[in-house]
């Protein structure tokens, strides 16, 4: 009986207890938010650094000490990649030809790979 009355107290708490519960929940949630934000930043840094490097002029990608900022951000790397390499053509070929047969060698099962390679050879 004692436990029952205790549980009823929790169902219909007094006004102060609600606000204290809410405050506690808000406190926990902001703590969780902070943790998640830190992990998220950690997860995004590699991607952000890759983008940052891509937007720097070539000569500034290897300077030391390194910096996130650049003297001027440029799309030069994208332009030269698209104009001087076969990237667009390969992208098209992979999209069209590589999609369905690509699933077979993509599995790490070696017998399949071997046959695929023999077929290509």
């Amino acid at each position, binding site marked *: 009986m004692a436990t029952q009355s205790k*549980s009823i107290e*929790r169902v219909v708490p007094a006004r102060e207890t609600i606000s204290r519960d809410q405050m506690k929940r808000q406190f926990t949630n902001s703590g*969780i938010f902070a943790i998640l934000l830190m992990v*998220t930043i950690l*997860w*995004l840094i*590699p991607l952000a650094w890759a983008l940052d490097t891509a937007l720097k002029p070539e000569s500034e990608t290897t300077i030391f000490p390194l910096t996130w900022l650049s003297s001027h951000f440029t799309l030069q790397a994208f332009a030269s990649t698209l104009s001087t390499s076969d990237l667009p053509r390969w992208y098209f070929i992979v999209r069209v030809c590589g999609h369905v047969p690509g699933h077979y060698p993509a599995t*790490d099962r070696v*017998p399949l790979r*071997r046959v695929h390679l023999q077929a290509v050879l």
Partner: protein
Amino acid sequence: MSLSQQQMAQAREQAQRVPRMKGTFRWRNELVGFGFVLPFLIAYALFLLWPVLLGLRMSLYNWNLAGGGTSAFLGLGNYQELFADANFWSALWHTILFTVLSTPFLVILALALALLINRTIPAKWLFRLAFFAPFVLPVTVVVLIWQWLFTPGFGLINSTLTAIGLPTVNWLTDPHVAMISVVVVTIWWTVGVNFLLYLAGLQQIPQDMYEAAAIDGAGAWTQILRITIPLLGRITTLIVILQVIASLQVFSQIYLLTTGGPDFVTRPVIQYIYETGFSSYRVGFASAASYVLFVLILVVTAGQFTLLQRQQRRGA
């Protein structure tokens, strides 16, 4: 109780009686069904069954990529040589080490992130995006990004270490650190899948169970330990099984990051198979090694399934 069972048995009998058709019609019906499955069966036999059986046959011969197929029958000679090869055992050990190091993080971190995100907090989309985004990238891009970060000297990680006054680390060339670097890259790359699976599992747990538990006076920790984690049991088993299989097959990110180095300390067993098969042209020997790995994965998976079934029986 017995009456309802009787009724159910009767209903089952009736259900079985209904689709029983005349002989020829049924035969033709099955033939049509078989016709529908045939295209898949042909592809399956041609690209899966046949290579697997051919691989088994190859493993018994001194089969060479540069000619010399079935000329020299070795019996179990390839397997004997394999088990005597210290390089094979060390490669197998690296694969197992990678699995043991990566799987706990990939499961527990995914669960922790999913539990944290499953609360009423703002900017959920950002967290979901951040954890899943790396998985969309192909392995070459992932390796390129991380090689750039790991670069000694002007790489982001080592420069940051220097800036805060710590000694730099040769992430990919120090034999004691290289495997850890590989595991870090793998966690960053693939934790998003398990995270997403856990998130889906969490959303299937009915909310009223938590309400009932709160009424009974259970705190947040008790709710997680007594409701959330037990109800996620099935999805945890699925994730662990898939993760162990995937980790035992590790190859591409290691091969691209370190080529199995330094001094072969990160070379996984798939790379050993690849090198004996395609650099030494000994596909018969490589097939034998593939079959040993295949049996290992089969045994591990069967063991996990047995554990799962025992768990379920205890639960029921």
